[in-house]
């Protein structure tokens, strides 16, 4: 696929969300003010928040499904709700409900859906689909009918459909929910692979804090007061008050280390190896 961007990190901004407010049909209001949300090229950004905090609302604004009543949203320089068609090939989306997202009668047809709708020739479509099937290791599923697939397999099919144009931004809504640990790991590997090898920026909305360090460079925290914090995962998880207010638990390792008397505000390791090292280092004072 064409390399549009140069290889080094350019820090160019591709997403900016500024103080958005949205009111639903049933009059519930979602407040996304506070910090601006910014995503840059090749970045991996997590959106953390408990259920009901507005993560999905925020994501829907990014992809033009919702129009902000107040505030602005810009993706690749344009306002998504106005002209999503202009940036469609650059933005891939994986919704929470994969069943709704899979359109084609077979896996092959589903991955081919966007290219065919865009009018590519059947041979070009074939190339694009086969490439995706190989990248995601699902060649063996190509003729299968989607509703007989497992949750993890369906997720991969939806992902393939979203990545078929090798977009620069991928937006995922709670992608790890309901997956068994192996499927989850596979999914994370694929996302990180695309991020590193194919210049894919990620925006992942999740409430699963343990996964955040593995799939994000930066995280935003959402609470009922809006976007309340931003930073590297280690910074975020050290702020106990903030997390409590946003109704999020710190990752289990962070909790353990906090219990073992880690100093307030200290950046804590978020993976098992790092935690083991920390414990060995502080062994005498425990």
């Amino acid at each position, binding site marked *: 696929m064409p390399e549009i961007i140069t290889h080094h990190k350019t820090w160019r901004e591709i997403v900016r969300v500024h103080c958005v407010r949205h009111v639903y049909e049933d009059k519930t209001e979602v407040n996304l003010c506070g910090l601006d949300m910014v995503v840059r090229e090749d970045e991996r950004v997590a959106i953390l928040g408990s259920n009901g905090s*507005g993560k999905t609302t925020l994501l829907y604004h990014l992809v033009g*499904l919702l129009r902000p009543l107040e505030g602005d949203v810009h993706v690749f320089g344009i306002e998504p709700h106005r002209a999503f068609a202009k940036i469609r090939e650059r933005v891939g989306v994986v919704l929470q409900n994969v069943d709704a997202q899979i359109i084609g009668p077979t896996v092959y047809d589903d991955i081919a859906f966007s290219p065919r709708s865009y009018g590519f020739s059947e041979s070009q479509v074939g190339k694009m689909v086969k490439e995706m099937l190989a990248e995601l290791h699902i060649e063996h599923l190509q003729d299968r009918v989607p509703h007989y697939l497992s949750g993890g397999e369906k997720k991969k099919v939806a992902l393939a459909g979203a990545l078929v144009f090798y977009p620069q931004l991928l937006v995922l809504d709670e992608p790890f929910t309901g997956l068994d640990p192996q499927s989850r790991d596979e999914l994370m590997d694929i996302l990180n692979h695309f991020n590193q090898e194919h210049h894919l920026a990620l925006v992942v909305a999740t409430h699963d804090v343990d996964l955040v360090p593995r799939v994000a460079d930066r995280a935003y925290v959402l609470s009922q007061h809006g976007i309340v914090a931003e930073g590297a995962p280690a910074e975020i998880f050290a702020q106990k008050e903030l997390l409590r207010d946003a109704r999020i638990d710190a990752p289990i390792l962070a909790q353990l280390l906090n219990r073992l008397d880690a100093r307030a505000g200290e950046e804590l390791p978020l993976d098992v190896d790092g935690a083991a090292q920390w414990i060995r280092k502080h062994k005498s004072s425990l």
Partner: protein
Amino acid sequence: MSHLHLPDGIIPIFWLALGFAATALMLALALRNAREADSARRLPRLGIVAALMLIGMMAEIAIIGYHINLSVLGGILLGPWLGFIAAFLVNIILALFGHGGITVIGLNSLIIGSETILGWAIFRALKKKLNPRASAAATVVITLTLSTTLMVGIIALTQTQPALAFAGPEAGAPLITFELVAAAEEHPITQIDLARFAQLVYFFGAIGWVIEAAFTALVVGFFARARPELLAGDPRARLNKENHFGTRAD
């Protein structure tokens, strides 16, 4: 009983063709009138309601494992045009596994389609005077009575065949007269006693209509409590135009 599908092999070809022509005409009208600015919006609704009509037929209730006919409900939710298309889709799928003939898809679609259209229209009218449940029950009874009558009417028609007679050039008389005469060929359909058939159909039908009415009323009552805007009558006005995806997503 309210979902009696005509099988293959009993109706003369002339009427089969006419059935297809009439359905094609209705579909053309439906496609034109069901047009929306956002074409991606009507497809999922269409598929879902048609799917639900199929599921309804799989759900067994009451003594004889009776299957529910949700076409009236489908009409209420989709409106007359998409409702007719849904009826057609359901008929194709049913015909594909033998629940109703392929050659009579045209005629069967007119019957089921009439249920969606009439269901929509009558519910809309009654809703102004009665509460949702009562409206639904009454709508079902009236609609199914009418669609059954339509079916009997179709059967009656198929017992005849068209005859074109060429008249001589007499003064004042039309050159070609068209009339329906009793069918000359031996078709199974012509061998039934129409009166008897109608009696049976109405009798068993009536029992079915009561069950259907009660069931539909219950479902409509459920909607009236849970999502009243569904019954508002204009399927297109359901959502705020500016925010298409206005359901509470979080």
